[in-house]
């Protein structure tokens, strides 16, 4: 009984339960749910989402937010496409440069926020608009199609139900966990998110941690963009347009605090899986695709409200 209660108290347990029950429900609604191919499709669509969620999560950890995750992803995607098509760079060089561009964009966000003390909301709203502006101005909204066939094949590759695209987030997740919970900079980053003032008194520089968090976020957004190019088979300028909701929904449904200092990597991954499950099921049962947006909004409101209720309820007993 105590073990059960402790399990329920952990942030991601509820999500796991929702995912399992949801999967059973989907399987009952549609016989094609539990097929190898459908699970592959679902996992593939969650791969980019997980990295997008991580990109926001690391900034939430330090107590800030970034509205520029999607815009930066879009910019990295088209620059990646341009490097491949116009400059003809080798794939690995282009990937490395794309990640560096992401980190650079994140550094700009972090440096501006840390140096000026202006709210990260306003700074990233502005830089996000600048990133999107450069993206649209350069591409005139036209995609780059000159992506190497090997790379597109990687985007479609699978082993049974397991898409190759899922590997990057599966590798990044434990690295992030080690960074945040075992390494000094990660612990310091969380400490600044929990209480910047106390962290500063104990000798941590909040500004440095803010810059670090944004830089990592930029790198993760860049990686997400590269995967999105592989998934779509072209560097579309629209990549990142729809990342805003999922970037916040993932970490927040997963149990991250908007005030900083507390995140759950597993929670964020499960939250993205639940979202992918909902999208997948709605498509399978041939519901109007516009319901997906409605369902996502409702899901965020519901879980945030529930978390809040559970927190106050737990505090009382």
């Amino acid at each position: 009984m105590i073990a059960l209660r402790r399990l329920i108290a952990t942030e991601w347990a509820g999500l796991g339960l929702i995912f399992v029950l949801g999967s059973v429900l989907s399987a009952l609604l549609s016989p094609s749910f539990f097929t190898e191919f459908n699970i592959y499709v679902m996992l593939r669509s969650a791969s980019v989402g997980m990295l997008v969620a991580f990109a926001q999560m690391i900034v939430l950890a330090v107590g800030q937010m970034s509205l520029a995750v999607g815009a930066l992803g879009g910019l990295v995607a088209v620059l990646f496409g341009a490097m491949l098509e116009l400059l003809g760079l080798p794939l690995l060089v282009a990937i490395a440069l794309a990640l560096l561009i992401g980190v650079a964009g994140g550094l700009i966000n972090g440096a501006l926020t840390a140096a000026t003390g202006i709210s990260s909301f306003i700074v990233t709203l502005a830089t996000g608009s600048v990133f999107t502006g450069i993206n649209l101005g350069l591409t005139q909204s036209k995609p780059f199609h000159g992506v190497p066939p090997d790379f597109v094949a990687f985007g479609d590759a699978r082993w049974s139900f397991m898409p190759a695209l899922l590997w990057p987030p599966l590798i990044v997740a434990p690295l992030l966990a080690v960074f945040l919970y075992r390494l000094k900079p990660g612990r310091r980053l969380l400490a600044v998110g929990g209480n910047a003032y106390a962290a500063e008194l104990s000798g941590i520089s909040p500004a440095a941690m803010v810059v670090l968090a944004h830089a990592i976020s930029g790198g993760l957004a860049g990686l997400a963009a590269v995967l999105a190019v592989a998934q779509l088979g072209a560097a579309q300028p629209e990549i990142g347009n729809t990342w805003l909701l999922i970037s916040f929904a993932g970490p927040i449904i997963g149990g991250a605090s908007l005030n900083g200092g507390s995140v759950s990597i597993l929670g964020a991954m499960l939250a993205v899986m639940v979202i992918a499950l909902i999208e997948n099921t709605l498509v399978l049962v041939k519901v109007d695709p516009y319901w997906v947006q409605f369902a996502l909004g409702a899901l965020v409101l519901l879980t945030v409200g529930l978390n809040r209720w559970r927190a106050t309820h737990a505090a009382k007993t």
Partner: protein
Amino acid sequence: MGLVTDAGRSARQRREISPQFGLMVIIVALCGVFTLKQPGYISPFNLFAMGRSLAVDVVIGFSQMVVLATGGMNLSLGSIGVCSVMLSGYLMQTLGLPVSIAFLLALALGGALGWLNGFAIVKSGVNSFVVTLASANLFSGAMLVLTRALPINGLPPTVSAIGSYKVFGLVSPTLLAATMLAVLLFVFFRYSVSGKEMLAAGGNPRAATMSGVPVNRSIILSHMLSGVLAGVAGLMVVVRVGAAIPSVGGGDWLLPSFLGPVLGGVALAGGFVSVTGTLLGAMLVTVIRSGLLVLDIGNFWLQLFLGLFLLAAVLAQRYGGVFRRRPR
């Protein structure tokens, strides 16, 4: 006592005027540059077109400003706006209601959706950012399901007649409506009890609660007001386009909604609004947008310029503030 309030007020006025003077200089300078490059910029035709789009930018800015006053924010105003747009179209075309009644009901829907936001924020205690981010998707999702993303084109001719009507041969009635709203909001925040309560709730919720201000009610009221204003902005677009289009608003209003108030010196922390500042901020947005259009630079670069201006403006305010020793 009298001395203290006077000092407080003159300090506030100084604070309010300086960034606005800077904004005015920038606006006039930009207008000058655009006119030199392309004399058609100040032609009556372009001024009329600018006035119409200025009206929308101003009201979007106000819709965000009233929520910023209480220290919150509203990411769903674009979605609320488009819900009002589509409802007005449905009422006029399918139900054949008169334009005035359709517009009133559309504004009522805006207020109702705003109330939902405020109610959810107050009842759950969850940050307004998360609630309105989620409700934005909820509202536009519901709108898309109901309308199947199809525009409503057969509106009564009165609608586009309002849009193309020119007062004194130059000014759009929508701009006059926006100006009237500016005066009303100015009076509301300076003289009405509800307006002052909103500012108090935003400035310091604890102190406000202790002095008997109904903080929760103020927050809900600010979101209702924001919803109605988003509806007004939506209807202004209906009048301009002569149709109810489901791609109006949405995420496109997010940046301009913050640009106006933030350029005008409204802080995100709450407790302070500047109606004139928001007006000038919106004017800057419109001047840049129209200038890029006239110079044929193309809409693709617009976003870059708006972002750079927002960045420059907040940096100028931040470092201007060091010299002027802003309180708080």
